[in-house]
């Protein structure tokens, strides 16, 4: 009797497990018909950078629905195939291979994190499938090959912008840098910030490192405090930044923290709270922009998802829109022709600004700097390239 009961429970356990993993997967299934254009998206829908992946997905989905409502591209509807890489190294390559070989997508959109874009880019390049990263800012991503594009600015620009902000607006002469060693994005941003900060006569008094996923930064922050910098540059992701700010204030570090677009997330302020007061970061998009395109986008987004858009969603939206525009101009979904059309993109009116693809397949566009004041994110200035 006992044995049977035991077996029953183990079975129930396994069955429940299968049920859950089954529900988690999005499996569109192969579509034999040629009346749709299949576009692949890979992103961090779960895991540590889930907030980025989810927002990007919402932006892309909104663009797909708007394109389809307006009659699609080349008379065909866009069909979006989305795969989750769980914010894990190694997963991006796996899901991108699946999207290309078994789903048969004609182009790929993704990722936010530079590390995972760098994983998928060589696969897209070898397969001759154009890939557009909505928001990977590390320069190496598009250096992989001529099929890899992005619709955001790159780290040298962002690092320079924040170094100039530190020296001119904050008027700091000394800075400390706290980098996430697990992230190509963070390392790149730190490098270009340091170069520009030193070039403008500043001094880097301390460099500390952490690994993405850490929760305790007291050791590094204690060392930073001992070096007493006038500003601390934290080019990390929102997941850690909120906790870093909290612990920095508790240790009595009262100078401004600066960062990049990795800070941009609805969960930043709830976690960091008052500790983030007076801190600033550079990003791609400000909801304070009054242009009709931006306002139309924001209204639709709010209506669809009942939340305010961050910067990741409009980049996903623009990536999809630029891809649709390129397919339209190419007149075909052939990889090489779409690539040429993408490379020729000039002054595209996106919701994140006017986008021109430069010869290195990076977007040339302006950055905005935002500051956290009274628990809200306030627009400070726009910096042109």
């Amino acid at each position: 009797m006992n044995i049977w009961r035991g077996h029953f429970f183990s079975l129930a356990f396994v069955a429940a497990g299968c049920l859950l993993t089954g529900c988690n997967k999005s499996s569109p299934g192969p579509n034999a018909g040629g009346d749709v254009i299949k576009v692949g998206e890979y992103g961090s829908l779960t895991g540590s950078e889930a907030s980025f992946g989810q927002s990007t997905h919402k932006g892309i989905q909104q663009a797909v629905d708007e394109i389809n409502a307006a009659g699609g591209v080349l008379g065909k509807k866009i069909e979006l195939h989305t795969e989750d890489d769980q914010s894990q190294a190694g997963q991006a390559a796996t899901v991108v291979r699946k999207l290309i070989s078994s789903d048969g997508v004609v182009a790929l959109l993704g990722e936010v994190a530079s590390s995972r874009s760098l994983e998928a880019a060589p696969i897209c390049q070898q397969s001759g499938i154009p890939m557009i990263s909505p928001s990977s800012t590390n320069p190496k991503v598009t250096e992989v090959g001529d099929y890899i594009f992005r619709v955001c600015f790159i780290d040298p620009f962002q690092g320079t912008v924040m170094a100039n902000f530190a020296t001119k607006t904050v008027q700091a002469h000394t800075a400390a840098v706290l980098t996430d060693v697990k992230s190509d994005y963070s390392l790149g941003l730190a490098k270009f910030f340091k170069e520009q900060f030193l070039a403008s006569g500043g001094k880097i008094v301390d460099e500390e490192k952490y690994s993405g996923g850490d929760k305790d930064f007291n050791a590094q922050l204690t060392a930073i405090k001992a070096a007493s910098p006038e500003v601390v540059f934290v080019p990390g992701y929102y997941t850690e930044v909120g906790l870093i700010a909290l612990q920095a204030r508790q240790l009595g570090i009262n100078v401004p923290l600066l960062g990049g677009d990795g800070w941009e997330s609805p969960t930043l302020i709830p976690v960091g709270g008052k500790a983030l007061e007076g801190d600033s970061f550079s990003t791609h998009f400000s909801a304070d922009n009054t242009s009709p395109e931006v306002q139309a986008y924001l209204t639709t987004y709010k209506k669809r998802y009942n939340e305010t858009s961050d910067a990741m969603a409009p980049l996903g939206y623009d990536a999809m829109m630029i891809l649709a525009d390129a397919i339209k101009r190419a007149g075909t979904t052939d990889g090489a022709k779409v690539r040429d059309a993408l490379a020729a993109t000039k002054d595209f009116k996106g919701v994140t600004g006017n986008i021109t693809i430069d010869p290195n397949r990076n977007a040339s566009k302006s950055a905005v700097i935002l500051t956290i004041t009274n628990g809200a994110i306030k627009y400070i200035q726009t910096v042109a390239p």
Partner: protein
Amino acid sequence: MTELLQQLINGLALGSILALIALGYTMVYGILRFINFAHGDVFMLGAFAGFYLAPKIATFVPLPSVAGALIIFGLSMVICAALGVLIERLAYKPLRKRPKLTVLITAIGVSLFLEYAGQFFFGAANKKFPDILPTWPVTKVLGLSVNSNQLIVLAVTLLLLLGLRFIVMKTRMGRAMRAVSFNPEAAALMGVNTDIVISFTFALGSALAAAAGILYAINYPSIDPLMGIMPGLKAFVAAVLGGIGNLPGAALGGIIIGVTETLVSGYISSTYRDAIAFAILIVILLVKPSGLLGKKEVEKV
């Protein structure tokens, strides 16, 4: 000097949380001779229990307050104790007479199940843990910044350790636990109900994990379903370092790991933090294979 003391305080606060988790590993090992890898995820569930209880408690006890925090602590510990017993009954008990390896693999399975079920039900994004405990301003003592949360962690850990020591050494159930840990067959022949003792051990370990989860969330108020993996792993190492199966050893191991980690990232390199901390462990285990307090202590629970 001030910096060194500050780093020691940081390390002590981190280490005491690891110590609380390590106790759960070591108790289960002492009784059943197997590593319950799902223990780190019970720690995560403790934090989430607190997260979902806080708004309900706030309707009749204003938060943040000491009374509210105590209620949340208590309820979350009870919930996790029940979950721990449930996990043992459903997943481990049917395998009790099977090879230890089978149970170990099952434990890894339960751990993954809890992590991904957590992502399914709670959502994958990190959540802000509510402020349940009032904090007083950062105090400056001799140039050191000590915040109230760090002190609370130390105090609560100490209290729970003393409470555990009392249960194991002074109660009938504690005596039964020690008996089962020495020899389960002999204990059963002497009339000890081993099933109840094992359930009680899981309940106790899971309750401590829940307390650790909430303490962790108070200090690092960003919680997600995968938050238990690293602390769980480090607490397991702490338990081995102190001598697995030995209660004071687990506590000591936790503190040593916390302090080592903090000092390594503060003075050497945070990139190699885990590598150096673990290298130290390897050296200690080479010299004392049974762990720091592994052999000397007679009581094993």
